[in-house]
């Protein structure tokens, strides 16, 4: 066994393999403990009726059949998809634009960076609590500003079936500093001599951005795209805290509905089925991103690694 491996791969490569597994060992163990094992069990659970108190009982595909007939499943899917397809492109473009602006040597640069990044620092429940009051139709600062600056009578936001999702999208854009800081890290990693070379070749600002900056930071754009897809489909805290899915389920995000089934109605089997459907939806969108990546993502180290 070992000898045939040795003949096939060579000594150096086998030693490197051993080191590879030394380094990825913690994740490998965690993968089996917290991911692979639970996943297999979760598949099984999705074919059972399991309400914690009694052991799971096999019911075949009944959970999935019920799911198709469940109007709240379709509602939560619609809410989450609309939110993702609007907030993600806006957020990606917005955070890159801000990063490029803040990569200039403007006066007070680090101060401005801080201002933009602070909203990303402060995610979670306190922020949801804050925005809940910012959107308040009577006392909220947003409607007051709309009236003062533009003379617009603001909508009821979180109390309106039409405006509750735009409200969540607006709130998500407040956090573009999170993507920005990742872009900034990448922008500063672009070697200056490439810019110098481009300048000697007579490239202007726009040309440098399109031909140097974008390709050099494309791995990070790709990272933000993929994580954005995965994150957007899993919005939970803000919907739990701000609207609890209301009004009339107009902001019933998928994960909130899933949480309710699992932890409030204790329908663990049905919730597992819901989870698997979301898994395949996210998988599909991520696969599309990866399929396109070869055409536009450039890795410097990769050119030699393969």
């Amino acid at each position, binding site marked *: 066994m070992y000898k045939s491996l040795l003949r096939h*791969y060579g000594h150096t*490569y086998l030693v490197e*393999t051993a*080191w*590879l597994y030394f*380094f*990825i060992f*913690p*994740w490998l163990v965690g*993968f089996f403990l917290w*991911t692979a094992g639970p*996943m297999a069990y979760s598949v099984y659970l999705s074919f059972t009726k399991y309400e914690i108190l009694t052991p799971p009982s096999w019911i075949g595909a009944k959970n999935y059949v019920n799911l198709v007939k469940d109007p709240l499943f379709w509602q939560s899917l619609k809410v989450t998809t609309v939110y993702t397809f609007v907030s993600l492109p806006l957020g990606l473009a917005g955070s890159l634009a801000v990063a490029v*602006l803040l990569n*200039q*040597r*403007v006066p007070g640069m*680090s101060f*401005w960076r*801080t*201002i*933009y990044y*602070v909203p990303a620092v*402060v*995610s*979670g*429940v*306190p*922020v949801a*609590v*804050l925005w*809940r009051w*910012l959107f308040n139709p009577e006392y909220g*600062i947003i409607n*007051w500003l709309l009236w003062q600056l533009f003379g617009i009578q603001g909508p009821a936001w979180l109390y309106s079936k039409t405006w509750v999702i735009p409200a969540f999208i607006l709130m998500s854009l407040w956090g573009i500093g999170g993507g920005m800081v*990742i872009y900034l*890290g990448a922008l*500063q*990693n672009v*070697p200056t001599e490439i810019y110098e070379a481009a300048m*000697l070749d*007579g*490239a*202007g600002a*726009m040309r440098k951005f399109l031909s140097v900056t974008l390709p050099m930071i494309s791995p990070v754009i790709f*990272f933000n795209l*993929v*994580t954005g897809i995965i994150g957007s489909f899993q919005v939970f*805290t803000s919907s*739990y805290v701000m609207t609890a899915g209301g009004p009339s389920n107009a902001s019933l995000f998928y994960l909130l509905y*899933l949480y309710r089934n*699992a*932890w409030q109605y204790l329908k*663990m089997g049905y919730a597992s089925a*819901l989870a698997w459907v*979301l*898994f395949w939806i996210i*998988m599909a969108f991520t696969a599309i991103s990866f399929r396109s990546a070869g055409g536009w993502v450039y890795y*410097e*180290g990769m050119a*030699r690694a393969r």
Partner: protein
Amino acid sequence: MATPLSRDFAFPGKPRRAGILARKSTQQAIIKYAALVVIVIGAAVISVPLLWMISTSFKTDQQVYLTPPVWIPNPITLQNFITGLTIQPFGLFFKNTLIITLGSTLGTVLSCTFVAFGFARLRGIGRDFWFIVLLATMMLPGLVTMIPVYLIFKGLGWLNTFKPLIVPSFFGGPWSIFLLRQFFLTHPLELDDAARIDGCGYFGIYWRLMLPLSRPAVAAIAIFSFMGNWNDFMGPLIYLSDQHKFTVPLALSFFQSTPTYTGHLNWLMAVSLVALLPCLLIFFFAQRVFIQGIVFTGVKG
């Protein structure tokens, strides 16, 4: 005759003459100040929510609901912080959150840099297979595994303890591993070769070369991890049932709709502000690490 600005866009590929240097700096100045104007307007818009929060948390009850809103409270009161934080035991909630956050941030940084180094810099049998597996776990909605993992922790008797919220982070999180790997990949492999020629082992390359070179990324991971854990809501929501074990976010979501706090928006905002403060402080502290990292990063020839 075209202006200097449009000239560059019109003929981007045209070789530059030496005499153009003076004009170039004027043009750069124009771009710089146009950028500054956009930055300032954006900063003003993006600051409104937190400024309103800060302002509200220093207001007396009478000034909270006034229209037009009062931006600078008069008088300024600290009473909201005292009452808001003591009417429920928020001191305890802060202690709980700090224990969980520090534990899991340490675990994340140690394990994720280690694993990411393996995936980014080493070749070996099965590497690409395991990396695809890692990517697949990134795409996994948390709740696919959350129910069975909950059952595991329940079986271990860990419910209503901090362990389910700390221990898993020592096994590496796919998101952080992926980001670190992307950063590690941007360094040329010649660096590793040079280090090996100088007698450096793989652990040395990881510890003495890749980590210092990747300080912005490692700092980013530490910051994201701290913030992610400090703000984590779903974990504590599922695992902690005893109010004495509550984290700040859990307590805040629990109490925000009680009459105590809805009737006193200034108390609620004061508590929320203090809940945000540790993240802000860590960020301001870590900003220096960012700047140092930028100096150390990148092979500049």
